[in-house]
């Protein structure tokens, strides 16, 4: 009788150990997933663009000045009334990759969904889970303050139609960046082209692989953006990989000068959080991009 009881006890201990092991593995995966979501939320600019008060992450209210007027970033915290607390994962995926809200309204392209369209579902959902792991911020959304006719949201359907014809980016065909981490980070997650790709008719990006910068659109805005192709004179071709990595971590250029205002914010709220090997992959890819 006694050996049977001992055997039963042993089985119980075995079961407990196995359950404990499974529990640890599952928790480790969650921790990893959240860490990935956190880093990507910074690298993709979600945190930087949707945070105006550092104590209210993702609470929105960040102002973006453009030649069309001011954009006020929305609250994307998990608050049910003012944020995205009622959104399903499918609605979040649609918003991020298609630029369409849950009530089927088009987003202004200040939100770079055209770049996010190529992000993997698991990366986007890691960001979703990270946002949902933080407290809800009950900050009310402020409307954009745009000039006529840009304030008519319905016109964006027309813009999207023209964008599809003019641009070389087709969002229904997902680019596969498997084994191309640098290209994935530059052309999708970190959406470098949203600023560094030249814009054409109706502010459309014609070529998403062109990172040769942008000329000033207005003297008042002072919005020229530098060429980051591998050209030695006009671009960053004379920079080494470690120069680019150091710049994306600290904002310090090889000549000892510093990043300009917008880029310094992107570094502060985004690229400095990327892992070292990801930064080297970005550098490697950027140094391959030719001047057009």
């Amino acid at each position, binding site marked *: 009788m006694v050996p049977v009881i001992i055997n039963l006890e042993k089985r119980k201990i075995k079961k407990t150990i196995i359950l404990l092991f499974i529990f640890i593995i599952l928790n480790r995966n969650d921790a990893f997933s959240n860490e990935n979501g956190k880093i990507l939320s910074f690298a993709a600019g979600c945190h930087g663009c949707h945070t105006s008060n550092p104590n209210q992450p993702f609470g929105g209210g960040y102002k973006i000045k453009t030649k069309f007027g001011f954009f006020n970033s929305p609250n994307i915290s998990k608050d049910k009334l003012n944020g995205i607390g009622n959104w399903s994962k499918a609605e979040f995926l649609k918003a991020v990759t298609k630029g369409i809200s849950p009530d089927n309204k088009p987003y202004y392209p200040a939100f770079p969904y055209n770049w996010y369209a190529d992000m993997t579902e698991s990366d986007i959902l890691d960001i979703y889970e990270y946002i949902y792991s933080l407290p809800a911020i009950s900050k009310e959304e402020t409307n954009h303050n745009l000039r006529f006719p840009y304030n008519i949201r319905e016109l964006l359907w027309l813009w999207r139609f023209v964008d599809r014809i003019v641009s070389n980016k087709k969002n229904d065909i997902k680019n596969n960046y498997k084994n191309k981490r640098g290209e994935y980070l530059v052309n999708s997650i970190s959406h470098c082209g949203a600023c560094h790709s030249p814009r054409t008719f109706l502010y459309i990006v014609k070529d998403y692989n062109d990172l040769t910068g942008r000329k*000033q659109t207005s003297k008042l805005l*002072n919005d*020229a953006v530098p060429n980051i192709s591998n050209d030695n004179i006009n671009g960053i071709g004379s920079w*080494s990989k*470690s*120069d680019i*990595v*150091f710049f994306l*971590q*600290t*904002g*310090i250029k*090889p*000549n*000892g*000068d*510093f*990043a*300009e*205002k917008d880029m*310094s914010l992107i570094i*502060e709220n985004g690229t*400095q959080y990327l892992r070292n090997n990801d930064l080297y992959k970005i550098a490697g890819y950027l140094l391959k991009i030719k001047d057009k």
Partner: protein
Amino acid sequence: MIKVFFVLTLLLSSFADQLAYAENTEDVIKYRKNIMKAIGSHISVIAANLKGKVSINEDILPHSKSILLTLSSINISKTFPENSGPNHSSKTKSLENIWSEKELFSNAMKDSVKKAESLVIAAEAGDKQNIAKSLGALGKTCGSCHNKFRKKKN
């Protein structure tokens, strides 16, 4: 005849004054650009060691001290005199608010000096990660000053 001579002398002296004034303006602009370049060069030397491009780590401390010394000895009223703004010369990238918001500019400069002091402390301790952090923090104050008081580069 004497009257004509008097008027001519007056005109010439005023022209010479203007020329000297212009030369002085351009000189001081060039001078302060050189100070900024010198700071940039010291930063590049430290950064080259942090990036691993060279391993002359003993240079980090003297160049950190040089940044502190250069920044803390800038005499704002002499290096940025009233007549050296964008309204007086096209050669400067300085913005007019250096003179209209003097206190703000002076505080921004003091902030950079504080960060340079932290850089020297980190360089003395010798931990490269901390040096990189301190250099980044100094860079942030320099960048923030440039963003407020320097015309954006095209």
